[in-house]
């Protein structure tokens, strides 16, 4: 009996996973169509969630309907009517909306409806809403994953290593902000568009990096963040095909993700880019990245902030061996990047490229200018790079103390160990010389 129950529990979990999978595929169509009907994104989101709950209740017993998208849409629409009726709308606006919906239900046959309309513009509007600058970055990321990617609150919480209640509150609050400030349904145009687009790209890149630079957590949902960010990047290039930076961000993510299989050894230790086995780089993804970068350039955006970063990564992707890397070009690209995005971290990266292209002396001059930079205070990579340059220049005693300072700042155990070893190597080199 106990065994049977366990078996049933297992079967239910499996059925739920299958339903969630279908729902994830259908969810963007559902929410975009509901948002258009109701002119209210947060409400539309609530209704898609209700449709999911209804499916989870009824499909395990009744079986998955032949056209699950149509089923979910019909259910959500019924709930929408209930909602409007319940709120006893006396406002004329709501009456009109209800009228719109009735008309829409009449004229839009549910059969394969999910395939019948082009949701591009609507989806873009939804993405702009989820990434509204009025919301915090964390709220934008959570809302985007929930509304555009169809992740559950629990999944988002696991991916960001946060308690579920924190994420749930963040989503509720963000939706309330959108509703109360009347921002719930709008598409920016003209100059505002590119400004708002950069806020969207920022969130997508944040989601990608959260998964890509997973410094903590082993959960499989962290790679899932990379997957969703890449998917969002592809969505953006499809719904905003004339925006060079959308293509550039996609290129940057595709090219970075192409190295995923080569980045970690069997023991889970990170492998540095120049030491990676390039045969493990994903060539399909590199091709897609190069295509997206080409598109960004065609659209007149080789100098954008993502285009420059993608061009740098492309230099690595195109080099068959580490020694074939075009360092002068990388150094030049970093110089261009530094000109538009004044950032000491970009300068530090430029110094590394200059060291490879021209030599440690020229690089050290750049790094020495950064030593008193307040934003890099406490950043272990600054002394780490500096120690390396000093070592290469034969200034071993200075290299040793610099590596020791870097080790003291490193937050990660493996990095600390590596830096301590380098300090010791510099110390023995100092004795020998």
């Amino acid at each position, binding site marked *: 009996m106990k065994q049977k129950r366990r078996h049933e529990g297992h079967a239910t979990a499996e059925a739920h*996973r*299958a339903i*969630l*999978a*279908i729902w*994830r*595929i259908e969810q*963007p*169509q559902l929410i975009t169509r509901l948002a258009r009907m109701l002119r209210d994104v947060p409400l539309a989101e609530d209704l898609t969630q209700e449709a999911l709950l209804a499916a989870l209740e009824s499909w395990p017993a009744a079986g998955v309907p*032949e*056209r699950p998208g149509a089923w979910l849409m019909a259910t959500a629409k019924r709930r929408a009517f209930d909602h409007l009726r319940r709120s006893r709308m006396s406002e004329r606006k709501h009456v009109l909306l209800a009228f719109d919906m009735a008309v829409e239900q009449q004229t839009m046959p549910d059969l*394969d409806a999910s*395939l*019948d309309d*082009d*949701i*591009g513009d609507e*989806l873009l509007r939804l993405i702009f809403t989820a990434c509204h600058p009025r919301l915090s970055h964390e709220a934008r990321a959570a809302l985007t994953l929930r509304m555009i990617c169809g992740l559950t609150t629990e999944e988002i919480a696991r991916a960001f290593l946060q308690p579920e209640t924190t994420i749930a509150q963040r989503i509720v609050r963000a939706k309330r902000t959108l509703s109360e400030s009347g921002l719930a349904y709008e598409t920016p145009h003209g100059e505002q568009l590119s400004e708002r687009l950069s806020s969207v790209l920022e969130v997508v890149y944040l989601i990608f990096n959260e998964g890509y630079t997973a410094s903590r957590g082993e959960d499989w949902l962290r790679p*899932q963040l990379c*997957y969703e960010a*890449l*998917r*969002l*990047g*592809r*969505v953006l290039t*499809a*719904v905003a095909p004339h925006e060079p930076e959308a293509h550039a961000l996609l290129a940057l993510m595709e090219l970075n993700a192409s190295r995923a*299989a080569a980045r*970690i*050894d*069997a023991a889970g230790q990170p492998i540095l880019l120049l030491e990676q086995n390039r*045969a*493990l780089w994903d060539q*399909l993804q590199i091709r*897609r990245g190069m295509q997206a970068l080409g598109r960004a350039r065609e659209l007149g955006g080789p100098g954008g902030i993502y285009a420059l970063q993608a061009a740098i990564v492309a230099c690595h992707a195109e080099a068959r061996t580490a020694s074939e890397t075009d360092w002068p070009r990388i150094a030049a690209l970093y110089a261009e990047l530094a000109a538009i995005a004044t950032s000491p971290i970009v300068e530090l990266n430029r110094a590394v490229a200059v060291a490879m292209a021209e030599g440690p002396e020229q690089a050290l001059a750049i790094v020495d200018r950064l030593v008193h930079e307040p934003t890099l205070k406490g950043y272990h990579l600054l002394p780490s790079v500096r120690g390396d340059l000093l070592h290469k220049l034969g200034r071993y005693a200075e290299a040793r103390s610099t590596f020791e300072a870097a080790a003291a700042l490193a937050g990660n155990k493996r990095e600390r160990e590596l830096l301590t070893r380098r300090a010791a190597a510099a110390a023995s080199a100092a004795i020998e010389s």
Partner: protein
Amino acid sequence: MRFMYIVTSPHNGPPTPELLEAMHKLTDREIKSGRMLDNGGLMPLAKGAQVRLKAGKLSVVDGPFVEAKEVVGGYAIFELPGKEEAVAMAVEFMQLHKDLMPGWDGTCELREFATPPQ
């Protein structure tokens, strides 16, 4: 996870216009949703060729192939979070065939890409 879909069928005629249109819409949706990386239909096997290795002997055989029962008609490559999504996609694709090309039989096989060994 990356999946390859391979569609095989004993039928080798072209799809009905209705099915073709529905598949275009599905493809468009899947490209815009960022899940489909690549896809393509294949010309009839009769126009292709097979290079066979049997008992240490290579031979090049041109079509038509009278003995071929199930023929690969098309493929697609998707990137999806898991096998459940992969199955759901294939079911949706085959439902279109059921609805829009009566009498068609076939198989949509899905296979996860092997990840390179570490």
